[in-house]
């Protein structure tokens, strides 16, 4: 009996749950209508998103040339298609521990003011479409400086996506503490 119960559970696991059914139904109902399309990725276990229009490309980790006299979150520079661009460790930029470089680590090349910048992230997740009503303003999380780097919170049915204010991320003074 125990055996047959286990095999049944296994079979059921492959079937749609009520939840997935509802999700799929909601998606069909909204159709293709969406206001923003985001690239989502994880940094220190949290999901972040960047407007896809900002993205130039996603590259695998490559040798980064260290640059002296810059804040520690600037890992250095990398050459991308003949251009030399800064590579910013997003974990450190957000005030977290430095990134552990792993096979899944990627550099997101984002364009701010016509200039590409590299953001080092743990892992790229997927493309997510959001309607404006699914986005709320960035919460004021105390006086922490990192709050200013967020432009809002996106809410899908199953998770929160922290929307990154990319221009703010790549704007900093060189005198910032190491």
């Amino acid at each position, binding site marked *: 009996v125990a055996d047959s119960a286990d095999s049944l559970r296994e079979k059921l696991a492959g079937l749609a749950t009520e939840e997935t059914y509802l999700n799929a139904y909601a998606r069909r109902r909204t159709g293709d209508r969406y206001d923003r399309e985001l690239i989502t990725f994880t940094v220190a276990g949290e999901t972040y998103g960047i407007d896809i229009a900002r993205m130039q490309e996603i590259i695998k980790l*490559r*040798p980064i*040339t*260290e*640059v*002296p*006299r*810059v804040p520690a979150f*600037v890992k250095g*520079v*990398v*050459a991308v298609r*003949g*251009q*030399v*661009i*800064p590579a910013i460790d997003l974990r450190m930029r957000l005030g977290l521990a430095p990134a552990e470089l792993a096979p899944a680590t990627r550099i997101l090349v984002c364009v701010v*003011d016509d*200039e*590409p*910048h590299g953001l080092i992230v743990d892992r790229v997740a997927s493309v997510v479409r959001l309607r404006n009503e699914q986005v709320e303003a960035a919460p004021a999380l105390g006086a922490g400086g990192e709050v200013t780097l967020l432009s809002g919170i996106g809410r899908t049915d199953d998770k929160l996506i922290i929307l990154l204010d990319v221009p703010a991320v*790549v*704007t*900093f003074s*060189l005198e910032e503490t190491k």
Partner: protein
Amino acid sequence: VADTSDKALGEFLSEGQEIVDGLNHNLLQMDEARTPQGVQFDPELVNECFRGVHSLKGLSGLFGFEQMTQVAHTLESLLDSMRLGRVAQTPEILDLLFEAVELFGQMIAAASSGKEIAAEKVMSYLARLDDAAGRDSDTGEQDALSCFDFPPNILSVLTEYEEHRLLENIKQGRTIFQLHAAFDLMSIDTGLEQLKDRVKTVGEVITYLPSADSIDDTTIQLDVLVGSMSQLPAIRRALQDDEIDIRRVKRTDEESEQQVEAPPTPTLPRTRGREPDLAPDPVPPDPTPDPVPTPDPAPVPAPVPDPVPAPDPVPDPDPTSHDDLGTIRSVSQTVRVDIRKLDSLMNAVSELNIVHGGLTTVLERLSQRFDLIDETRALTREVRQLERRLIDMQNGILEVRMVPLRQVFDKLSRVVRKVSRESGKEIRLEVSGADTELDKLIVEELSDPLMHIIRNAIDHGIEMPSIREAAGKPRVGTIRVGARQQGSRVLVTVSDDGSGIDPRRVADVAVNRGVVDQGAVADMTPSELQNLLFLPGMSTREVATELSGRGVGLDVVKTNIARLSGIIDLSSTRGEGTELTITLPITLAIIQALVIESAGRTYAIPLNSVLESLMITAAEIQTVEGREVYSLRNHTLVLSRLEHLFRLERPADKPRPHKMFVVVIGLAQHRLGLVVDDLVGERDVVIKPLGSTLADVPGIAGATELSHQETVLVLDVPGLVEETLLRPPAATEAA
């Protein structure tokens, strides 16, 4: 304003700017020719101006910039009147024309952002132009022509302008010559151009027209009227062609060739209707052989290269079309290229260099395979070919980027004119080395700093005329701007013979403003004190004048120069003047670099700022006041360890070597020994910017790709020298 695409607008703006620059250049040449007695403009220059303004009128009309069209139109009329001698040539007119250059410049600047300049400005200028054009010049000179023995048909076909020039030549006591030359139909264009060029060395071509007596179908005969101060033999020599008949046009009241001619005066009896007055006898070409044997081969006076765009190379044989000069048709053989396109070409070449590097690596591996020895050799040859072509290509692109400094120097002349007038000082600008070439980007970026230096020289340097005279100096102050190439660098110097800089006064101001403290000042040499002027917040005059502006000082100039990898030096003698020397690399696009290693990191140092490198041991390093120094040929060389400078953490597998290298870097008279672990070699590199986010990292000029996936930083030598040697202790960051 104008409904046109951005690209077309860009073309218009740059072509417009080019025309205005040309106009400025011509006016400056006219200004130089000014004598104490008055002004006598070179008619060719007035013509050039006229053509330029005419083109500008057409262009701006096409793009709907009405203000510009309006001013160009009125200006054109004035210039036309000047050509025809209807308006007297006075210094005031010249000033008025210079004003047009300013005004057009402002209009072009405004147009680039789709704006117009204030209408009242334009109206007031137009009114003054009209005023000037309406002023009558003496016109009582008509028909001095009738007493000359011109060939019959010539006078009737002269245009108004040509007639004016003919009269003007006679008025100035020049002799009129008639040349009769035959040209091959096929090569008349070049032949005529050559003739005109040669005549220009001795006189002025007034007109040329086809002669009636053509011999056959393949040649064409021209009669050319020339006005010259020279006599016939000199003309003959200048023409370098015995085939051309030369005849002096005699006066009808003249008895013989030997008679000394009195310059004809404009008070000659006026006679209307010239044609019947002239005897219809066709004058035979002068059969007398040239009395002076022509030295053969004649020393060809090298034609002076024209700094302004060459005149229309296609001469129009129809003299009546002369009033129609200056179309918008482009006559030059040049292409205008956005410098960024050259940058991307240069990038492509540098990527090719990386590919070439990859090929070389493969070749090295192949050379281990003895069974492929023939193929390897063949491939080696090909790779070498590729290398040579790459170098050609690189040099070609670099050459295209080079432009003469004249572009900037011409603008400076204008500033001197304007500012000296405003300040009531009398100043002469002497320019030398304007043909020295530099990368276009550098020339562009140099214009503001130079402008500022010149304004400083006028404002703070040159004294008022009365003070100068009291000091036993010439009343007119002199500012010299010069450029010369020295190896891979260009030195630009600006000097004045003004009052010089008082080091003690600089010290007082520096202490008062808290730029340095009293103690530091006490130990400084006069030269070090004068160099304090380059620090932020310094200005020797307490009262900022309108000319130099408030708050913008030499520190900004210095920063701008440093951005071009240049360094600026100042030397001044009280009472005698000040000299600023700017040392610049010829190009920023591609440089030779010394690749070095320090604490496991690789960097490139531009070779043009490396003086030498030497190997030393730790024992040879001494200290003076806590600073490491090395005794190099009896001179004390301040050392700076790159790993300390950049606070590099030394990896465990890279212990500090026992023997290290000192790279002596410096520009101008400043020297610094950079201590590094190892020298890797010399490479040609393309410097790439780090992007605006990291552009201001001190000590780093950019980055370059040494090979695929190996990017290294390029050190900013002027910056490092400055922060280590020149920055006074108070201003350095707490290390």
